[in-house]
């Protein structure tokens, strides 16, 4: 399995990430870091315990990570949560089903990290 195939599988934009990082090797190195990164789990747990401020911080960081890695789908979801939770955007918050988004992020994150784990396993 190639990195490109992996990206296709997890709803990411391979062209974008390779434009940024130039080589598959570097991408793979950072994908490994992604598995260690706790932003998405942090976001989910902060939301579950009702800590909006922490959830916003985590979402914001997760969004940066996902966009940098060109995880398009996860990036869009975390972006949406970030905007909804951004202090002051009450109207948007009211009209957004954050619970559903968090659920989606949870599913998507599991999907992405499982795929990466599986992928990295084949690389070793």
């Amino acid at each position, binding site marked *: 399995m190639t990195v490109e195939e992996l990206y296709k599988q997890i709803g990411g934009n391979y062209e974008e990430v390779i434009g940024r990082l130039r080589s598959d090797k570097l991408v793979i190195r950072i994908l490994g*870091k992604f598995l260690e990164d706790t932003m998405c789990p942090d976001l989910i747990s902060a939301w579950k315990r009702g800590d909006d401020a922490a959830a916003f911080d985590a979402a*914001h960081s997760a969004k940066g*990570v996902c966009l940098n890695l060109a995880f398009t789908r996860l990036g869009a979801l975390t972006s949406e949560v970030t905007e909804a939770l951004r202090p002051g955007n009450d109207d948007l918050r009211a009209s957004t089903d954050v619970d559903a988004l968090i659920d989606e992020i949870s599913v998507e994150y599991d999907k992405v990290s499982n795929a990466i784990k599986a992928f990295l396993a084949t690389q070793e």
Partner: protein
Amino acid sequence: MAEDSLPTQSESGGLGHYLSPLNVWGLSVGCAIGWGAFVMPATTLLPKAGPVGVVVGMIIAALIMIVVAICFHYLLTRYPDSGGAYVFTKKVLGFDHAFLCGWSLLLAYLAIMWANATAFILISRYLFGGVFQFGFHYTVAGYDVYLGEVLVTLAILLLFGVISCTKKRVIISLNTVLALVLFFGVVACFFIVVGLSDANFASFEPSFAPGTNPVVGVFGIVALAPWAFLGFEAISHGAGELNFSGRRLLPIMIAAVASSAIIYILMTMVTVVGMPQGYDSWAAYIANLGNLDGLAALPTFNAMKLVLGDIGIVLLALVVVAALSTTLLGLYRATSRLLFAISQDEILPPWFSKLSSDGIPRNAIIFIMAISVLVPFVGRAAIGWVVDVTSVSAAIVYGYAAICSFKLARQKDNRLIAGIAVAGMVSAAVFLVYPLVPNMWSTSALAPESYLIIVVWSIFGLLFFRLAFQRDTKNRFGKSTVVWVLMIFLILFASTMWMRQVTHDDMEEMVVDVSEYYANDYKTHDIKVTSEDLAREDAYLETETADMRTMLLNSSLVQMVLILFSLVIMINIYALQRKREKDLEIKRLSAEETSKAKTAFLSNMSHDIRTPMNAIMGYTHLARRDDATPEEMREYLDKIDDSGKHLMSLINDILDMSHIESGKMQLQLNETDIVKVIEATYAMFATQMQAKKIVFTVDVHDVSDNVVMCDAARLDRVLLNLVSNAYKFTPAGGAVTVVLRQISDEEAKAEGKASFVLSVKDTGIGMTPEFAERVFDAFERERSSTVSGIQGTGLGMAITKSIVDMMEGSIQVNTAPGEGTEFIISFACDIAGLQGKGQKEIEPIVEPRDFSGLRVLLVEDNEINREIAGLIMEDLGFEVDLAEDGVVAVQKVASSKPGTYAAVLMDIQMPIMDGYEATREIRTLANSELSSIPIVAVSANAFADDVRLSLEAGMDDHIAKPIDPDRMIQIMSRLIPG
């Protein structure tokens, strides 16, 4: 308009336009001249001013009436209706004023009608003696009322009512003949009397009334004008029925006024000449008139009898009957049309505006007959009090005519008419005040009863106004408090005057009583007093009571003013309170409206989001199938891509809108070549326009300051919204034109600004006026667009409007269904610095540059982001130092040797110390080389205000995550000199 709606006008032999100029003259003269013209010369005119004074006064009065006629004519050429002054006032000043005007007209017309109807019996008394004085009998205010005479008067009132219900043409012909008889009869009588009597110039001595100032006398005559000529304007109730152009009406009205003045003057002359033998001068005769009986008390008839005997009396009686008849016919007509017009406005029940088959408001005539039934029973003296009041109501009506024409003429910039109307307004004001104030310019006041009638009439008016207000379902009344105050003023003032008149009379009696008492007292006690002593005593009593009266009047006037003043304040408070309640209500409604719109928007939104989402999921499902060919796969992916893009634009719109709504959106002004922005739009749409066969043109005119300070992205957004809408709603074969024009605006230029007008015009389906009004409202979208599929978020125009508002510009829309749409935006921008002028701002082409040997400090809390950014920077040749939060970053910079770091890449959101704070700390470092180090914000937030915040914190630039390497090269090249 009311006359236009008469159902049978055109069908039944063209009765719609049947009034010839002669008919109109007859109506006007007939209404103006009644019983008064034949008795007033002796009872009022001559005692006031004398023969020459009457002539001069009448001429001036006629001139003033011509001013009023010009006002009426100016109005009725614009509102040719049957309602006359009532309708003019309604159209120009609103219903409140129209009510007062109509109420005044009604009183005036009815009073004149009643006075003339009851005058028939007076002639019969002179001609036939007491023939009709049978049946029961009583006295009202000194006037004997007999059953027989009551019956005769009733018969006359009803007779004319019935005649007025018959064919229009018959009535008008009869009226015209009678008017001719009246006018030429008066002229004939004058020549007969002057020719056959031994009158010479000496007969007209004294020229002015003895013992009075001639000027005061003439003024007294002029002041009678509204009373004397009242009715000449009644023709305004027939403006819709003329068989000639309304413009030609003015000479006819002037002729009618002149004819009426001539009649008054000739009858005055006849009165003077008809002096019976045994008197030195007309003055002695007139002074003694009160003591005479029979014909001698009626100088005009007496004069005719002197020269022609009984034939003369019959002749003049014919003329007088013609005068009375024309007045009754004309006023039955005018009053019924007035009631008709008021009823058409649903202020009176619809019963009044029912028409007979001949197009005559018969019910209104029946109503007038019904209320007139009581009149004969109250006697002429009482009717006289009502008649005296008509000067007040006529002054109100003439005043309204003048105010309305003034207002209209000012709007139309007609200075001549405006000037004439001012003269009319001043005259009307004098006419209104003059009869109300006793002893003003030392002429007589109204009778106490007349003041009471004004009070009663005003109170009834207020009551009726209250009723009309209550019944008014169209919110037409209650707009003007001036009317209330005017009516209350009339009530208060007239009641004060009534009190004053009553005490005046009582005190006069008291003086007499007291004098008699003392005279008796002197007699019984046998005290000798000379007549001089008595006279002195009388005089003393007179002055004392006069002082008392003056004091009473003055204090009640002060009291009235105080009451009125507080009433005005109260009404004002009330109006203010009402306005406040209304404002609150409006706010509440608009809040409700917004929340409703938001709910509707959300449901629309969820529909719109679901639609592309369904497409994406559906095609994904299809693409997952094993048997999908690569071609099919590509097609599915294309569709998924399209839907995804649409969804993206939807989300962007929502985010923008929420920014705008929360007031977060800010313009980012940069040096921009505005022409480039427009041209870019052309490039963007050219292909798709061509594909849809739409002629797409972009024109730039007279733009001399093309480089201005402007938010290019936002301007682009505006253009994009407008042009894509134009594209969407223009069918194939249509045209879309974008025009940018700089307008020469010296004022703006002086402030260093350039003013532009940007127009986006299409030949598309256009909008209904209702939708065009709401097109800029957030959450609004055309119903058809939801039906016809995905057309947009319904936010585009609201965003456009908000952006234009932020640019301090204005946007307007010209559109009609099927006639295309044009959006016109006017805005002004600061002209960019002179060095930028004429230059094109070109995004520098990114040239790879070797940054090797340079070191940057990368501040980022997230390991992955740190790694990625690090890799990008290393790829560009940089050496990278890392810091995981703001505190570490500040420490690293502070402890570094100046020149170690070429730049700092600063994440914004970090624990412990965020990017803004860290930047501020660095900027305050003591070492100037370290504190001025280039700092670039790296943030996942890319809204304009995030960029602004970064720059405000002291950073040099801003780059959004995910990092675009090209952009990074650009920024670094700029910040680090090569």
